[in-house]
């Protein structure tokens, strides 16, 4: 066994996850090789003090702070000054871009917006910045999507897609064709794939019932019976309300089951016509795509080399594993985007 091969295996050897055959070979080699023995010793000592590194204890006030945040989570408060109805021209711009949000917001200026924002809270911690949703979408459509080729002084042709907000000095029109196939470039600039806007569908159902708490239980039962993920929403309320009666329910349903579930839901009370809207998942998709681009770029550079060192081969392995992980992530996002979000709101009738 050569030193290089042995050193590759020292880490799993230390953790006792090598095969019997590998163990025998390593032990035989170590007997005869002081260099590898030294490296193993160094690794052992390093792992020892990592084990013993002092870890800070939970700071004071951590539990109280968490407590407060959990409470806030159950009670998303929208007051008029915390969000603004978007200016008309923003909506026109969005409409031109063909965004489905427009219909949902015009249907009611308050409730669907609230529901969209509530479902949007996943990645947005601040409850007071709903306008960001609109801005993100507009940003998407003001990106310069021109694909340009750029010849650098070294005479190498490099393909860049200007997916970032374009600055005039960086964008040059090509003197030759713009459809050059992406080259595995010798310049190190990565190409960023722009994902198209991705939206998941959402429906809002408003039920007028005698007892909201009771009906909510029934909705949860429907969810459980159908095996659907559910969570609480703020019941589309503008004013602060306390307690569980303020909570509506949000379900995630596969497209083919939507009709069935909607049927079951609307049977629970007097339902207004459901209104439709969209949830913007573009950023999540773009994030994963960006990571994928970076990793694939690095991989392509390695693959382009005629000869790879052992270290580079290892790197290639890791990059391939990374690509696998990211592909899985993309598949999961796709699945999530295919689900329809149903927001159920309760309106309690007051008995005179």
């Amino acid at each position, binding site marked *: 066994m050569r030193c290089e091969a042995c050193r590759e295996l020292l880490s*799993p050897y230390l953790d006792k996850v090598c095969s019997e055959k590998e163990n025998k070979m390593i032990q035989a080699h170590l007997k005869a090789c002081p260099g590898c023995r030294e490296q193993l010793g160094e690794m052992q000592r390093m792992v020892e003090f990592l084990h*013993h590194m002092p870890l800070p204890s939970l700071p004071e006030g951590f539990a109280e702070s968490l407590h407060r945040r959990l409470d806030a989570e159950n009670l998303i408060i929208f007051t008029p000054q915390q969000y603004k109805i978007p200016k008309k021209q923003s909506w026109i711009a969005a409409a031109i871009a063909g965004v489905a949000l427009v219909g949902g917001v015009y249907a009611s200026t308050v409730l669907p917006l609230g529901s969209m924002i509530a479902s949007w809270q996943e990645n947005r911690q601040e409850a007071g910045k709903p306008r960001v949703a609109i801005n993100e979408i507009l940003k998407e459509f003001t990106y310069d999507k021109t694909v340009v080729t750029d010849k650098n002084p070294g005479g190498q042709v490099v393909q860049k897609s200007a997916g970032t907000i374009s600055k005039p000095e960086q964008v040059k029109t090509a003197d030759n064709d713009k459809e050059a196939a992406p080259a595995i470039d010798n310049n*190190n600039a*990565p190409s960023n794939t722009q994902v198209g806007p991705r939206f998941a569908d959402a429906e809002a159902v408003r039920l007028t019932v005698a007892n909201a708490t009771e009906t909510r239980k029934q909705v*949860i039962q429907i969810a459980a019976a159908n095996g659907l993920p559910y969570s609480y929403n703020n019941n589309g309320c503008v004013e602060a309300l306390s307690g569980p009666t303020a909570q509506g329910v949000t379900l995630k349903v596969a497209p083919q089951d939507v009709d069935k579930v909607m049927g079951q839901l609307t049977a629970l009370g007097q339902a207004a016509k459901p209104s439709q809207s969209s949830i913007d998942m573009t950023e999540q998709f773009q994030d994963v795509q960006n990571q994928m681009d970076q990793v694939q*770029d690095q991989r392509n550079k390695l693959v382009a080399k005629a000869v790879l060192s052992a*270290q580079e081969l290892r790197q290639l392995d890791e990059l391939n594993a990374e690509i*696998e992980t990211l592909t899985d992530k993309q598949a999961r996002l796709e699945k999530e985007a295919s689900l329809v979000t149903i927001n159920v709101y309760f309106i309690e009738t007051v008995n005179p």
Partner: protein
Amino acid sequence: MQSEEQLLQKSLSGDTRAFEELVAQYQGKVYALAFRYMGSEEDASDMAQEALLKAYKSLRLFKGNSSFGTWLYRITTNVCLDELRKRKRRISPLSLDEPLAMQDGEEVDKEIADQSPGADILYEQKEFSDYIQTLLDELRPEHKTAIVLRDVMELSYEEIAQTLDCSLGTVKSRISRARDMLRKKLVDRELIP
């Protein structure tokens, strides 16, 4: 004394007190993990809370394929890595002319003024530990997570695979590479006896 299962059920129906009790035994470890990822106590506190909040919000996605603790570590890891990525983008926005890959797969060596303590100091000292943290911060995210989960949090390979949502083979190779990189840094600075 309620069982974890009971607390889980209560938490699922919106009982935040039950959730707090459920995570009480894990929050120290979640915080410690966040600390080793982020490098500062303040960040660790923020990230740990965000992770726990995220866990509460997506509690019904916990299928029991792994232990609850491992599931929390997974969320913590993702929350921290996302934040670190965001910060990296903010500090050095991807310029079209900047090389992305490192030469020979080496980590980008940050320009830290070398304050390496001498080799004769005690390893228990906090200053040495802080210094090791700066070396850990130089590692690429996938290597940092692997070595922190294995050698600091002492999780098994299987638990790490579940935490990172990758294969055992990937776990093995990442731990191996991470340890090698850290070892080299320590040897270069003559910090290994």
